[in-house]
């Protein structure tokens, strides 16, 4: 089971280039708003038409500009969970789910499938309610039920948690994860939240201004993002241009420091990054004098911003993030970071 997408589309000043391949499980499409994520889902669903390229799902061509194939959305068997869930406001929860069962002609079979879906998604109590009368979580379950009863070959989720209050989000992520684990086909999930992507997706492609990076497994991607855009979107706060100065050494002119690295530096290095959590006062490695600049208090952590001595005034301050009880009384004069935590960026 696989989905192969190779499409390009111009709209206005924006150029979408989506080339990726996914095989089963949940693939995240992670990127900032307006980076072409939803447009790509719409192209896959057949709601929008790409300018060129092809879309192949489980060996079946949904779209091919050269062979002039462009199946209508009705023929693609692609489940699409919209950001606002798109429940039909004129129908009850039950009727909405029945819309996903319209292909089942036998009445008793249809009723049985409906009953099963209402039970599975805990919607029995609200089955006769209109969408305006149910909670956000129930709305999401109704939309999912409506899609899954239609047995789609691919499931696409567009920012599935953005319409929910933050305290509900985590619970629904658990719920959705459970639901997805029993779904057999590939799943695409669009999100701009790295936490959501990390929790829900086994692999991830990153969109940067319309261009898709190759799909990578989630954990290696977070451990070694490899590019500026991937470092930024996976939440790296400290990113700068760098040059190779040795097999295990890089220079960061902006910060006026030289880092030793654990990974071998390849030619063509463009930059380095490190996560705000990994700075510490104990290590002697990559230890440099620092000047305190400002601070931000969060519920459970401190964010301390500083500059390296001699750091260029144009570059942004460095983030250091640490748990509240770990904060030293006096801001340290020097900070170090383990070579293994220096991430190397090549594009």
């Amino acid at each position, binding site marked *: 089971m696989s989905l192969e997408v190779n499409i390009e589309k111009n709209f206005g000043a924006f150029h979408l280039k989506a080339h990726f391949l996914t095989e089963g499980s949940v693939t995240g499409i992670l990127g900032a708003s307006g980076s072409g994520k939803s447009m790509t889902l719409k192209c896959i*669903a057949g*709601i929008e038409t790409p300018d060129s390229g092809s879309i192949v799902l489980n060996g079946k061509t949904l779209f091919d500009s050269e062979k002039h194939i462009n199946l209508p*959305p009705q023929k*693609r068997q692609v489940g*699409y969970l*919209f*950001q606002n869930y*798109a429940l039909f406001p004129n129908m009850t929860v039950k009727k909405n789910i029945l819309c*996903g069962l319209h292909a089942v002609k036998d009445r008793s079979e249809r009723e049985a499938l409906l009953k099963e879906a209402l039970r599975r998604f805990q919607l029995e109590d609200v089955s006769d309610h209109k969408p305006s*009368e149910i909670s956000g979580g129930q709305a999401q379950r109704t939309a999912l039920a409506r899609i899954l009863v239609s047995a789609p070959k691919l499931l696409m989720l567009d920012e599935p948690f953005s319409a929910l209050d933050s305290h509900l989000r985590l619970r629904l992520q658990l719920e959705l994860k459970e639901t997805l684990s029993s779904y057999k086909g590939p799943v695409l999930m669009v999100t701009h939240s790295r936490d959501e992507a990390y929790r829900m997706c086994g692999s991830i492609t990153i969109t940067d201004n319309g261009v898709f990076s190759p799909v990578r497994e989630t954990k290696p991607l977070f451990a070694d993002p490899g590019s500026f855009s991937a470092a930024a979107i996976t939440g790296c706060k400290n990113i700068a241009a760098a040059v190779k100065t040795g097999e295990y050494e890089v220079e960061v002119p902006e910060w006026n420091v030289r880092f030793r690295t654990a990974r071998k530096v390849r030619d063509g290095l463009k930059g380095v990054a490190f996560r705000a959590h990994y700075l510490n006062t104990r290590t002697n490695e990559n230890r440099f004098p620092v000047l305190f600049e400002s601070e931000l208090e969060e519920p459970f952590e401190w964010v301390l911003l500083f500059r390296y001595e001699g750091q260029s005034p144009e570059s942004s301050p460095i983030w250091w993030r640490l748990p509240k009880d770990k904060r030293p009384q006096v801001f340290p004069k020097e900070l170090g970071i383990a070579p293994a935590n220096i991430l190397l960026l090549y594009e």
Partner: protein
Amino acid sequence: MKLDWFPLWNSLRIALISTIMVFFLGIFAAFKIAKYPRAVKGFLDVFLTLPLVLPPTVVGYLLLRVLGPNRIVGKWVLSVFGLKLTMTWYSAIFATGVVIFPLMYRTARGAFESFDQTLAFSAQTLGLSNTWIFWRIRIPVCRQGILAGTVLSFARALGEYGATSMITGYTPGRTATISTTVYQLWRTNSDAEAFCWVMVNLAISAMVLLAVNMLEERQKRRLKA
């Protein structure tokens, strides 16, 4: 004083038939035109809305130029079907139809434009046909707006005077409508009867507007929820 009720009946049937015709035509035009490219849309929009701002007499004049017994359409219909398109009760249907069309078209278009397209998209991905989506989702969701447009068109059709009087004239018991009757009675100094018809007209119009307001309230509440 004995009132001849023919004008009420005539007005009602003209208004009803023209509203039904315009209901379908207006919705069809609104739905189709929403999909056209901007330039075409702009042109058609001006053309279709024009009767709303033209003096009814100008509409009447233009209709006479087309439907008159010696004009293209009028002559053809007369020779083929033997039907006269002017000076009959049903000729008023054309006049009111043209005048109320923009009302229906405009309100229907407004309703369609505020329709959330993701509803149609999600229905398509569920495999539902476009016709089904139109009748079972788009129309019901836009129902209140379309209904308000229909009622408003009906009210306007009942009140149509200018174009109607030009194309049907005034023949008691044959083409007289409420509005032409009021004018005729006033002209012939039958003040008491004219007043009677004025009251009838006021009552009907007030009821219709009340209905429109109620529908709009309900639509607002629905959108909020």
